[in-house]
């Protein structure tokens, strides 16, 4: 067979299993992972038992209201909805984490990756298939929920929106679990079990929102009002929108991780987009603000800046390659005749991206003040030093993380944590101790706050004057937060430059020297000659 014929054959084989253009419905109707999970977790015998238990329990909570004459069927609906949310969030998330970690631990994920299944098909398969029994149970419980709402007179539109919020919260949590399970370096199902419970322990505050202690009518019949970009709406709708946007990024990250284990969860451009979305959401939420106007930033606004900073920290983690990744990228670039990987390549250092983050944050904070001033019809100056510090903190975090990853590779985590402890926590602890001591002796109380402000996490709020304590020397606190942060940014940037040059010097000669075959000396020699040569040498 000639080479050309072979090429045609391989191409045709590749094309036979290629999905047609447009949406491939088999992702949903013939998804192998969903088929697998259905066969394992939707066995008739176990499902009949589950449905009987759910049916009896749901009927009982509705019947009780009738029997005792209270007729608060909205409470019954609350119990049913609470149970549904528990199944989807707690049990479903745990099942999803277990399934992903088990598939990764056994290496089965590679089989799926090598099949013509697209990463999107894998994502849908795991999202829908992992907690498939829990979804079936929830679907079975929905008619009971509707019945309770109809009996009480709760509008079904409100119930629909509430269910939408519950499902979007589920999607958000499942997306988060999926990405963390795919990122986990130790794909151990037991670890996943613990981790998913940990996630939900921290989400405890969301439990009461949907729990049976709250009557559904309060959320569905007369839901709390909200303002988003001045549009009058309800909290469940705003929550659904935000959860969907955040889930979108988690799902994009999931698709990338299903493609392979090597690439970061998001591209550098996607991280910039994610931060931009966070800024847009933050601006929208500002319209909800009902706090009285202050001289400086109000707590709500500061919380939004804090939220943006937190999002930046999370995104920076995905944009900072480690030593090996960077060197790999450098080698590849040199091979292609380039000096370094392009600024937005996965293997490039994160300096350009964190520069972009700083730009977006600057725009975000400026916009925040513009909106605030427009909303309250007043003009106030930016607390410049604190704003600059808030932006520099992101640069400091990003550059420090990049430096440690470039310097120490996989051991970077410990060193970086130590740096954060020393730079951000120790000044706060010392400052707090000094403030308490000064309070007792009633001398130099301001020094403690200044020392505390060296940690930018506390220096920014103190410098904005949001904390209403008369002894806080605001100007000094602003400077105490700004100067060390600025210094750290400068130092880390310089250290990265030096380290990068050192790595370049090490790698460049490999690519400049001709590619000598180390085994060329074997070509003409007989084994005896080789041994003789070896003995001689």
């Amino acid at each position, binding site marked *: 067979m000639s*080479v050309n014929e072979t090429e045609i054959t391989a191409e045709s084989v590749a094309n036979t299993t290629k999905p047609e253009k447009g949406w491939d419905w088999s992702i949903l109707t013939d998804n*192998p992972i969903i088929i697998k999970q259905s066969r394992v977790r939707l066995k008739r015998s176990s499902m009949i038992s589950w449905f009987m238990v759910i049916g009896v329990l749901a009927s009982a909570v509705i019947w009780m209201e009738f029997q005792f004459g209270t007729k608060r069927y909205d409470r019954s609906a609350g119990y049913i909805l609470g149970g549904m949310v528990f199944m989807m969030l707690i049990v479903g998330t745990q099942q999803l984490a277990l399934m992903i970690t088990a598939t990764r631990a056994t290496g089965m994920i590679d089989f799926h990756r090598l099949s013509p299944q697209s990463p999107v098909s894998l994502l849908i398969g795991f999202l829908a298939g992992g907690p498939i029994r829990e979804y079936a149970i929830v679907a079975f419980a929905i008619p009971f929920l509707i019945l309770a709402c109809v009996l009480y007179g709760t509008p079904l539109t409100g119930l629909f929106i509430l269910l939408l919020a519950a499902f979007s919260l589920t999607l958000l949590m499942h997306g988060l679990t999926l990405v963390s399970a795919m990122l986990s370096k130790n794909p151990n199902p037991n670890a996943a079990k613990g981790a998913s419970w940990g996630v939900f322990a921290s989400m405890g505050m969301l439990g009461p929102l949907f729990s049976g202690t709250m009557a559904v009518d309060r959320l569905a019949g007369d839901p709390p009002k909200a303002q988003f970009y001045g549009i009058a709406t309800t909290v469940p709708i705003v929550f659904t929108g935000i959860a969907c946007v955040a889930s979108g990024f988690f799902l994009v990250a999931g698709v990338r991780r299903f493609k392979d284990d090597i690439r970061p969860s998001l591209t550098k451009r996607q991280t910039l987009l994610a931060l931009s979305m966070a800024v847009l959401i933050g601006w929208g939420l500002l319209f909800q603000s009902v706090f009285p106007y202050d001289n400086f930033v109000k707590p709500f606004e500061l919380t939004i800046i804090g939220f943006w900073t937190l999002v930046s920290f999370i995104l920076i983690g995905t944009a900072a390659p480690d030593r090996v990744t960077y060197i790999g990228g450098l080698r590849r670039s040199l091979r292609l005749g380039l000096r370094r990987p392009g600024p937005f390549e996965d293997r490039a250092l994160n300096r350009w991206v964190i520069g972009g983050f700083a730009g977006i944050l600057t725009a975000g904070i400026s916009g925040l003040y513009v909106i605030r001033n427009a909303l309250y019809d007043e003009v106030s100056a930016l607390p410049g030093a604190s704003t600059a510090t808030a932006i520099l903190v992101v640069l400091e975090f990003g550059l420090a993380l990049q430096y440690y990853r470039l310097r120490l590779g996989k051991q970077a985590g410990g060193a970086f944590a130590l740096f954060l402890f020393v730079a951000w926590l120790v000044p706060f602890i010392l400052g707090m101790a000094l403030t308490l001591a000064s309070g007792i002796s009633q001398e130099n109380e301001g020094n403690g706050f200044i020392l505390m402000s060296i940690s930018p996490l506390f220096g920014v709020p103190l410098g904005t004057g949001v904390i209403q304590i008369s002894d806080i020397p605001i100007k000094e606190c602003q400077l105490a937060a700004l100067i060390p942060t600025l210094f750290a940014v400068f130092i880390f940037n310089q250290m990265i430059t030096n380290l990068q040059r050192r790595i370049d010097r090490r790698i460049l000669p490999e690519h400049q020297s001709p590619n000598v075959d*180390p085994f060329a000396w074997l070509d003409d020699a007989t084994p005896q000659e080789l041994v003789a040569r070896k003995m001689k040498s």
Partner: protein
Amino acid sequence: MIEVSDLRVDYDDFCAVRDLSLTIGDGEVCGLIGPNGAGKTSTMRAIVGLLEPTYGSIRVGGIDARERPDDAQRTMGFMPDFAPVYEDLKCWEFLDIFAAAYKIPKAIRKQRVEEELARVSLTEKRDVPAGTLSRGMRQRLTLAKTLLPDPQFLLLDEPASGLDPNARIELKQIIRSLAVEGRSVLVSSHILSEMSEFCTSVAIMERGRMVVHGTIAEVQAKFNQGVELHIKVLERAEELGKWLLHYEGVLATERNGSANELTVRFAGTDEQSIANLLADIFRADFRMVSFAPRQEGLEELFLKVGAKEVS
């Protein structure tokens, strides 16, 4: 055809595959040989796209596997050294879900599953949970899964590990039949004696580098100093030994104890030279019992190439 050139794979500060080039033609079964840590598995995983190489080019049937990994993967079947299965599924269910993954039409899915179960002799176990299978059977089930999409190119990483003798014979037959059908097969294994029975070419790796690559005959010609002949005569063995020493091309002779047997190292490796020598021995009136040129197996070849010496 699988064409790999200048492939490099790095893990941390360790270079697993260094500037490796390899070509496997249609109908060729290439044995990838090397000690543990030589880079065999990394090479295979990079070819199938499970590992991102630092650089290098990989073309599979003319498709650039790095630019169009999805298209390339559709033409390849990869079986890893440790074969995972979904333990809670029956054997046929396991194959059935992968038939869905490989987008085999529903109408012929069942038939394909049964065919592959029969090919690996697991028909009797079709309704048994995969988790209860022995290691060898799991290996066979995974092989069936690998063959399910009818791949043009097969990469088998230690496929014989855990297989019983019967299953190994079946595996050899399967690999031979795949080669006859014109497929390219890359097999890595430590059982070199068995590989020599079905491999048409070998690639010997050491510390991430390709030491030698070519057909077995080419590699033998490269590293062998002639061919080894085992000659048994009815009488006059000592005289034959002296006669042979004066024969052109004979490098050394050795008499095996007091028996009328000689081991001769002969420079001519081609069949014509060996046939001429045999005819001349007859003409010299030596009464021959047996005359056997001995081909060196992969194990000896591997030792001769001296991977350890090289490293």
